[in-house]
């Protein structure tokens, strides 16, 4: 089944703020084996000019993946999640995520295409502070594999 093309260009209301915790950043950094002092030690982060520990570059997926369920679990879209694989991922940073940030996500669908029996959907998530300071933009392309290509 094709994805609903009318989703292209649609923008969702901002999500509830995600409060970035120091221990969550440490836990994520440990899980990827990143030992940089700025991820673990608030003093080291302050010396680098930040209010608290800094998150590794891919940390935003912790809350953007959850936020994008707004789009991908909408039955109207018609996405069969059991056939979905991650296609592309891109981040553009205004600044790193820092412990203590309260971040909101605004989701949009940029593109839906169909090729060779597969369906492709590109979502864009604008992550900013509650005050509206831009932090990072996250693009994610999901591929719904065709039935016969399974």
């Amino acid at each position, binding site marked *: 089944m094709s994805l609903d093309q009318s989703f292209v260009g649609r923008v969702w209301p901002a999500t509830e703020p995600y409060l970035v915790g120091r221990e969550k950043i440490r836990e994520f950094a440990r899980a990827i*084996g990143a030992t940089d002092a700025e991820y673990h030690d608030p003093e080291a982060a302050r010396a680098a000019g*930040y209010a608290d520990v800094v998150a590794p570059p891919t940390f935003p997926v912790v809350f953007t993946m959850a936020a994008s369920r707004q789009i991908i679990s909408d039955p109207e879209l018609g996405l069969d999640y059991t056939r979905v694989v991650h296609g592309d991922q*891109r981040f553009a940073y205004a600044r790193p995520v820092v412990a203590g940030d309260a971040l909101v996500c605004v989701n949009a669908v940029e593109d839906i295409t169909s090729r060779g029996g597969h369906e492709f959907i590109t979502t864009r998530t604008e992550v900013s502070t509650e005050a509206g300071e831009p932090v990072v933009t996250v*693009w994610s392309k999901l591929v719904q594999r065709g039935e016969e290509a399974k």
Partner: protein
Amino acid sequence: MSEVLEPQTFRVTRADLVRYAGASGDFNPIHWSERQATGVGLPGVIAHGMFTMALVGRAVTAWAGAPDAVVEFSVRFARPVPVPDTDEGTEVVVSGTVKEITEDGHTRLSLSATCNGDKVLSLAQALIRKR
């Protein structure tokens, strides 16, 4: 910063995937259940694409010399990274080369990640802030 990001090898085991699932909140069973992974046509349990990208991120920030140096970071997941249920798991090798210095003075790195000799990422690149 040198012109080349020398190949760096990361060992990936099932325990790493379990830890990453918990830390990231991505509990898709293809990353921890052999039964469910093979059930959807995969060769077995595979690493989270975002775990592989995080390893590349480690290599990039280490090369740049600062954990907050990355301005842009993008990858395409070309092939899965199968992780056998052994003590050794598997290995992901990350390398890169400087592609250009942009008009803004940022450095664009072209990146590669392989597993068992296969490219698992394509179009992988990072833009590193001018220091």
